[in-house]
């Protein structure tokens, strides 16, 4: 991250990532028959797999820092979201759905970690 162009690319990639999240979440919500939201889980776990791939690729390509920043910090940072995951769990908790309020974030965390590990292993 040195030149002004890098920051512009991060901004554009972040915007594209956020729009992709909105579209994937809308698509998942349309097909989800459960009372528990699944869109953010699909988005965040796929983002972890992809960031694992970018991280694994970056560690074996030292010159690729700029591209890794645009894809990792920009696109995937904008695509994945922590705040929506927190609010979804908070709403489950406040609605008295204690079990779902634990399983939703725990499942997302475990699946995200496994996806990141798989991505790093695949790209290394």
């Amino acid at each position: 991250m040195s030149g002004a162009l890098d920051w512009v690319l991060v901004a554009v990639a972040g915007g594209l990532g956020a729009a992709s999240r909105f579209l994937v979440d809308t698509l998942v919500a349309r097909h989800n028959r459960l009372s528990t939201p699944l869109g953010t889980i699909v988005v965040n776990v796929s983002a972890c797999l992809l960031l694992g791939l970018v991280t694994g690729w970056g560690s074996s390509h030292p010159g690729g820092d700029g591209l890794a920043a645009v894809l990792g910090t920009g696109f995937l940072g904008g695509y994945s979201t922590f705040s929506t995951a927190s609010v979804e769990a908070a709403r489950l908790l406040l609605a008295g759905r204690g079990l779902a309020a634990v399983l939703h974030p725990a499942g997302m965390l475990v699946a995200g970690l496994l996806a990141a590990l798989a991505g790093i292993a695949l790209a290394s």
Partner: protein
Amino acid sequence: MGALNPATRRRPSLVALAGLVALGGAVGATVRALLEHVLAPVPGSWPWTTFAINVVGSFALGALLETLVRSGPDSGWRRGVRLGCGTGVLGGFTTYSTFVVEAERLLTGGHAPLGVAYALVSVVVGIGAACAGIALAAARARRRRAGVRPEGAGA
């Protein structure tokens, strides 16, 4: 933003809404990238920058969404603010992928206890912050409603 004006009585297209999310997301992601650049995390230690971004973003999103829900139906300008500021700015500001890969780097890089603590504390404090934001917005909405009544009427 004619597509978001309820007076046109036309439902905004998915592409227009995605464009609104993209504008907000570009702002949120750039602010996060600047913070991560200036306050770059030190490998092998607690990633304070991402942690603070995610906790602050969770609190703000909880407060924003609860304020919007309590002010009226999710259409028109409310939907615009929810998608542009909530899904866009705050969704793009916070990050799950960076958080998980940071935890993974600690877990597999010889700092397993720190990695486990970072992962669990981030999720728990994030949910707590979202609950606090929701509670604050709910209390403010209640106070505002109570303020409409004449002084001394009711508790």
